[in-house]
């Protein structure tokens, strides 16, 4: 699936369906506001937050500027520490590498630490096709997996579910794949977590192979870092004999001390915690302790494409904290599924087109899934100027259609507007025409705006997009420039 949900319609259509789901809207509004407020509180505690953001952006920017060198250093460090390094150009190659490792160990199941990279490449589906079951062990991922659902948030993939729905999923599905939920399961968060813990424990103790991603990869030491909140990650990273980690090439940082700003920025931005509960680091193989066979799959899958984009490359700084999702007014209302990708929200709206290009309609609709309000840029811990990248990606979409034999109606309209705006005389004619329309509307309109101005109610045709839910003020009989000319800039005593 390579990061795209199969058969997903373009954003406006998917959003319309999501907006009609009242339960979803309630769940999302509640959850995003809760995390948003929590983040705002803990960020406000840090006096030098803006400096920290600059430092975080600087660490990632420096790593990206010299990516090839850092990756080679990382590979050498990993090999020195006893790990096996694989390079994967795309999703298919990466999945094949993981499947091959599992097969060599005769494993028909693997346990997984929550990882965006493995979701991006559709690893679970690829393993399933090979007859290998991949068990998600993060609570929210477990809910999504058991519910045969799709993730809708980077950090809290089941954000669209409330606890009553989760109880139902556990009761109906747990028994099919392992230990059943207890008969007296309630919808208390503690009870639900307890059921998940019992269910997962069997899997942790049985699995021979674990699969993870990594939040950071330190080049000079060869250390991988996983940041999580439930301890499930630590179980996966320490109990099985074999560990395979799929790591996007943009996860590399140069040195161990580069982790300092990152590990301070991440928890406050993502979960609104001051410090992250479980931060695991491992450097290749430690004899007699933990996995004795360690693989690292370094994944491109469009990242070098994004890196080549001068404006868009900053998106590779992303540390997947999801702060931008939680503050996004669009995400808050439509949720993650409408973006049709494991990367939803503002970062998804730029990252998907950067990784894949804008040739398909669904991806091309994503840069437009924003009102450009700028709330995402304000919270992003690594200062990704998402609004500017959105606009730049819109230009990429438009440019990709410049050769079309039949131009889109929008392109024709923009050309006409540009022609009108290129010369004030043309604009004056257009305003006279609209003033005339305003007079007609003023005479026949049966809608009056509060304050007394005539307005258009529901209009047919192209006006329907606006007037379906919004009255439209009738154009005034006289434009500002005509007033200025007629009254000599208001000096002729005509105050109005």
């Amino acid at each position, binding site marked *: 699936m390579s990061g795209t949900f199969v058969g997903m319609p373009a954003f406006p259509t998917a959003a319309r369906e999501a907006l009609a789901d009242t339960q979803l809207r309630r769940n999302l509004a509640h959850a995003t506001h809760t995390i948003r407020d929590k983040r705002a509180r803990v960020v406000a505690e840090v006096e030098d937050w803006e400096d920290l953001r600059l430092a975080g952006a600087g660490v990632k920017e420096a790593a990206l500027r010299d990516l090839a060198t850092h990756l080679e250093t990382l590979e050498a460090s990993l090999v020195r520490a006893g790990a096996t390094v694989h390079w994967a150009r795309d999703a298919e190659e990466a999945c094949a590498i993981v499947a091959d490792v599992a097969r060599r160990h005769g494993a028909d199941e693997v346990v997984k630490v929550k990882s965006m990279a493995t979701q991006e490449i559709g690893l679970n589906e690829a393993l399933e096709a090979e007859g290998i079951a991949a068990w998600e062990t993060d609570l929210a991922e477990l809910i999504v997996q058991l519910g045969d659902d799709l993730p809708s948030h980077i950090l809290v993939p089941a954000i669209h579910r409330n606890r009553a729905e989760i109880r139902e999923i556990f009761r109906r599905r747990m028994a099919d794949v392992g230990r059943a939920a207890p008969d007296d399961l309630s919808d208390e968060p503690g009870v639900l977590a307890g059921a998940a813990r019992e269910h997962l424990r069997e899997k942790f103790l049985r699995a021979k192979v674990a699969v993870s991603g990594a939040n950071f990869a330190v080049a000079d030491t060869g250390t991988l870092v996983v940041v999580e909140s439930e301890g499930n990650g630590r179980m996966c990273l320490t109990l099985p004999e074999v560990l395979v980690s799929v790591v996007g090439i943009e996860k590399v940082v140069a040195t161990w001390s580069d982790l300092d700003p990152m590990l301070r920025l991440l928890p406050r931005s993502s979960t609104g915690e001051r410090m992250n509960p479980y931060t695991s680091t491992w450097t290749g193989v430690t004899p007699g302790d933990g996995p004795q066979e360690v693989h690292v799959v370094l994944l491109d899958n469009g990242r070098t494409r994004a890196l080549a984009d001068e404006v868009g490359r900053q998106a590779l700084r992303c540390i997947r904290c999801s702060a931008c999702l939680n503050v996004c007014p669009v995400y808050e209302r439509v949720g993650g599924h409408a973006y049709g990708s494991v990367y939803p929200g503002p970062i998804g709206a730029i990252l998907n087109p950067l990784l894949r290009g804008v040739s398909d309609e669904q991806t091309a609709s994503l840069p437009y899934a*924003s009102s450009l309000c700028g709330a995402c840029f304000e919270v992003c811990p690594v200062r990704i100027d998402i609004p500017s990248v959105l606009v730049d990606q819109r230009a990429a979409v438009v440019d990709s259609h410049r050769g079309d034999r039949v131009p889109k109606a929008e392109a024709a309209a923009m050309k006409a507007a540009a022609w009108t*705006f290129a010369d004030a005389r043309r604009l004056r004619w257009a305003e006279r025409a609209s003033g005339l329309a305003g007079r007609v509307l003023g005479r026949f309109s049966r809608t009056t705006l509060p304050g007394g101005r005539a307005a258009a109610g529901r209009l047919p045709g192209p006006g329907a997009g606006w007037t379906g839910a919004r009255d439209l003020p009738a*154009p005034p*009989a006289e434009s500002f420039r005509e007033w200025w000319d007629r009254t000599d800039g208001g000096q002729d005593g005509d105050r109005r």
Partner: protein
Amino acid sequence: MKVALQVTCVNDAMFPDTGKAVVRLLRRLGVDVDFPGAQTCCGQPMVNTGYLDEAVPVVRTFVDAFAGYDAIVTPSGSCAGSARHQHSIVAERSGDPALVAAVAETAPRTYELTEFLVDVLGVTDVGAYFPHRVTYHPTCHSLRMLGVGDRPRRLLEAVRGIELVELPQATECCGFGGTFALKNADTSVAMGADKARHVRDTGAEVLVAGDNSCLMHIGGMLSRQRAGVRVMHLAEILAATEVSEGETGGPAVGARAAGA
């Protein structure tokens, strides 16, 4: 100081009263404001929809119209943001060094109205009188792109007779977003519906903001809901005085503009 009004295409064609209010207000404060007739639009509709080539002639018209002015004042946070932050992108794209140079002249001289009042003129009390219950929506581009901060609030607080009430979740986007309002109309309306609900909750008679395009969206929803709340541009409140209130029985926005 040579001061030009960039009225914006939306105000020129749809909300001339806002332009007139800026003229009245600035004259009252002793500023001899000019309206260069060659101006049209800042180019934002094209840029934000991705039509950068199409924006080139529009930006060219802008820099030609406003060449030689010390300050370009606009009653729109969005258009000021476009001139300051996006014109350079368009100019770079054109590959014309003359346009790049011209933008470098006009961009830093473009002020959103409240910036001009507070930072350049150094006033917060503009001598306005507006005895109504008002709530203020800080539009996204004023707030986040320009960082106008509390300037509009300070100006409003100094208005005599005004009853200013806090808008809940004020900093959240109203959902207008330019062509977003049409391309993603359903999401835009969902956002606008929540904004309208918060406005209604304040019990205000008037919703004020520094951008008529956002007000056209929120106001259009409030009107459709028959909420009984009118929308006004900040400039019109700041331009109102005891005299204008007495004469017109309240400066109704565009009341006589159409069909009169």
